[in-house]
């Protein structure tokens, strides 16, 4: 066989395999559009991908915090029955109890993502995107990661530099 014949024979085999695979699958998945998925599409990527429109300031966040968060996380994020949101003492042992947003979390987007999907505890997924931006801004300002008058939005939030950004080693890079 010539090279061309081998290539075309291979192509035919691949086509047969592909059509057989399609024929085997039940094909029962219901087709969705991006609009159908929007309400569930909560994942925020560390480069800012999928951050929604909207914005909020630390001052706005402080007011929402006093209503929605203070009961568990304490005044000014100092902690209560739930974790403290402030603190940046250097990590000196292998105890995870020392981890805080300011001394450990590598990406600012994680704060927005987690508040939006999980908080407040009793009514998760009820905050507006503006409220989530404002709370994120408030927490970052408490931790002196941004100035008190900085607005958080899809542009500014991913640019917040987290102090421990380079503190990680991927355990098994070959598996990624």
């Amino acid at each position, binding site marked *: 066989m010539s090279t061309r014949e081998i290539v075309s024979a291979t192509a035919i085999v691949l086509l047969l395999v592909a059509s057989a695979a399609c024929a085997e699958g039940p094909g029962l998945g219901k087709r*969705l559009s991006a609009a159908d998925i929007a309400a569930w599409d909560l994942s925020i990527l560390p480069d800012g991908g999928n951050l929604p429109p909207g914005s909020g300031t630390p001052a706005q966040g402080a007011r929402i915090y006093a209503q929605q968060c203070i009961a568990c996380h304490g005044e000014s994020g100092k902690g209560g029955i739930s974790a403290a949101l402030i603190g940046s003492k250097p990590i000196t042992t*292998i105890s995870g*109890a020392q981890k805080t947003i300011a001394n450990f*979390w590598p990406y600012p987007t994680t704060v927005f993502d987690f508040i939006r999907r999980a908080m407040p505890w009793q009514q998760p997924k009820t905050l507006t995107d503006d409220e989530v931006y404002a709370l994120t801004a408030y927490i970052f300002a408490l931790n002196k990661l941004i100035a008190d008058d900085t607005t958080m939005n899809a542009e500014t939030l991913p640019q917040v530099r987290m102090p421990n950004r380079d503190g990680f080693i991927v355990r*098994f890079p070959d598996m990624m």
Partner: protein
Amino acid sequence: MKTISGKRSQRQLDQLEPAAGNGLLDRRAFLRGGGAAMAAAMSGYALTAKSEPLKHDPWSLQAGSAVPAYEKRSRFEDKVARTLSNPNNEPRNSHARTPHQQLNGTVTPNGLHFVILHSGVPDIDPDKHRLVIHGLVKQPLEFSLDTLARYPMVSRMGFVECGGNSAPMFSPQPMQASVQALHGLASNAEWTGVLLSTLLEETGIDPKAKWVVAEGADSLGVSRSVPLGKALDDAMIALYQNGERLMPGNGYPMRLLLPGWEGNMNIKYLRRLKLTDQPAMTYYESKIYSQLLPGGKSYQFYFLQEVKSFITHPSFGMAMKGKGYYEISGVAYSGNGRIARVMVSADGGKSWAQAALQEPVLSKAFTRFRAPWRWDGGSAVLQSRAWDEAGNAQPLRAEFVAKRGELPAPAPILAFPNQHYNSITSWAVAANGEVSHVYA
């Protein structure tokens, strides 16, 4: 069956070959001796027990109760239960630990499978639950439980282990706690469901996709990023656990199963898989399960639950009932594949004997190991150490601590100060038969 006199069995017992120091015997005794010698070896006390005339017990003299539609275990087994960290469902996570010291074989019964949940057990109507696959795919698709039931299914045995299992072992002194308290956040079941690769064939995959971000339908929307390679390898949308639908604490009606990988990544109540070009750096991967190392850096994307074993019988809290013959047994497993070998020591690691592995030895699943032991009534330190088929050895404690560190002071037994402990566990047997936890 022929009974054996004490005299004869004693002769047989004496013929069992020592395989290592302090009374460890050759595992092949299990194979060679067949019934007689090992039956005697394993029930040493029976030979010395005083016999009494047999009589009929009450249950032999009247008919029993009605057979129930869904059977519960004997009322005499009620104390075999998980230990709970948050029985009143306060607003924090909840752990339920498997009582390894009261189980045998390799399958964890569904009611005793470990659970960690971060905001309680959701009450999901299976008819309303949906699984959505979207992002960098050619066609986003939604699947109901009914539609998934028509897809080709597979079954496999598989362990699931919390990344924080065995965290008390980071304490600088050995915590005096049971194997359940130390290692109860690992369990093993037969999982049945649809391979994720089957569903991704239908959605198609954009060549830019490298990760699959998985999310649950629980109130926190627990979410983890999984490399596409794992998703296409052996990831499963699990629907059944040991033959019945998943337990509510284990993800009913569907969970992601990533054989051999960190428990938290096996997202329960799975409702969404988004294909992306980067990991999402979620709360659980960038904070909780990124563990601190000595020197201040942290491991991220640990993924694997590495080769590990621990002895369940005897173990902390048990009392040995006189010198003589015992079976040392435990479980071994590796996220890298099959267990190749387990060695057991009765003298704190000075000498080792090879344990027998119970067939079938399955990849990324519990393997039960057993070793015959003649306890001379003196002090002993029992250890097990496993190797997997990829050649990885379970690290000795000194090796492990040198790389991964120790806490400056003991942490509360229910805390997760660090993750992915896979070094060995040592049980000390005292002359009075009590078993304690030691570092050796």
